[in-house]
């Protein structure tokens, strides 16, 4: 991106997760465990 646009991108909020796919997999796993408990 042009450098001036980089500066305009807000720093917050940001995600803890590097990968959206990784997040969804862990989320689904937790949901399944919670459903069974």
């Amino acid at each position, binding site marked *: 991106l042009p450098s001036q646009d980089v500066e305009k991108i*807000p*720093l*917050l909020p940001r995600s*803890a997760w*590097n*990968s959206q796919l990784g997040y969804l997999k*862990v*989320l689904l796993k937790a949901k399944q465990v*919670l459903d069974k*408990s």
Partner: protein
Amino acid sequence: MTYHRKSYAVWEITLKCNLACSHCGSRAGHERAKELSPEEALDLVKQMAEVGIKEVTLIGGEAFLRPDWLEIAKAINEAGMLCGMTTGGYGISLETAQKMKEAGIRTVSVSIDGLEATHDRLRGKKGSWKYAFKTMSHLREVGISFGCNTQINRLSAPEFPCIYECIRDAGAHAWQVQLTVPMGNAADNADILLQPHELLDIYPMLARVARRAYQEGVQLQAGNNIGYYGPYERLLRGRGKEDEFSFWQGCGAGLSTLGIEADGAIKGCPSLPTTAYTGGNIREHTLHDIIKGAEELRFNLGAGTPEGTKHLWGFCKTCEYAELCRGGCSWTAHVFFNKRGNNPYCHHRALVHAKQGMRERVVPKVKAQGLPFDNGEFELIVEPTDTLLPANDRLHFTANSIQWSEGWQQEPEFYYSFVR
């Protein structure tokens, strides 16, 4: 339309306070040695808007004891951010409430930590309970939306259902609840803290009260150390909606939340201990650079990789929810054990231990130093549930301690069936 919080800063604009709470994490009272000047404060408002903050809550100490507090509120509003405030409510007159409205303060949360005697005892000021409710009436009169916040500990927990009735009748639209943890003054008063095994009696009560609150239009909001993954998780985390994905998804410090101390120290969350979690000071670095570069604000990055769970230890390391939960509230874990990653305040954990005929207790081991936002260290004891409790533990909380007023005896049967 429901407003969903996106990026949020809690700003202690002064440490000066007119109350003396025995559970105060920041040991508020006198102002800090070098609080930000009016010019520095207004510059910080500008920087917050630039990094993407959408909502700012002013706190203290007692925020209104800072002379330029309304100018700061106005600047936040003019910068396009929503301005809220949390207050002990000891001294907001009708005239002050009107000025708050004019400055653009949109929401206020008033601290109510028990019925009158308990609240006044915990907050170190006789008459503070009465004035807090007077403040709410002033806010209502000028049309500022308000809610309450309550610390749950061994003194306030027995009164929890009655507290709800008081704040509902006062017109509160929201109620944030949180477990008291051993930071600051609370670290010196460990006998008022709930023991982890006492959560087994806390959560059914919390669920029963929450259920009614949602029915009666008061939005009970679970603080970050309420949870995790127990039978009432979806009710409490989903604010009554019980959506299938309404459950705890890890600490948000430095991700969506910022904490700012009155002298310009920047943390990922307002509750975190100053020494271990300050990423820098606004007087030495820009807010942009602190958020982007300081490790103290980046510790929650890396979820889903080995980096995301390497801080876990004890029960939390082996828990089936570990990868998503990541040890619950970092603040709560840290102030018990002087490091995060093992959180004794967890309903799921208490249930797992109970199923094995065991329970957990925490016992003070190292005293806190006596500084704002400091902590000591506790020893964790795991023992069979039939072990005799220490004779000097007089405040022990059980379901039998709870005061259910007459209004609760008449509630419909379905309330009981839900929490059974």
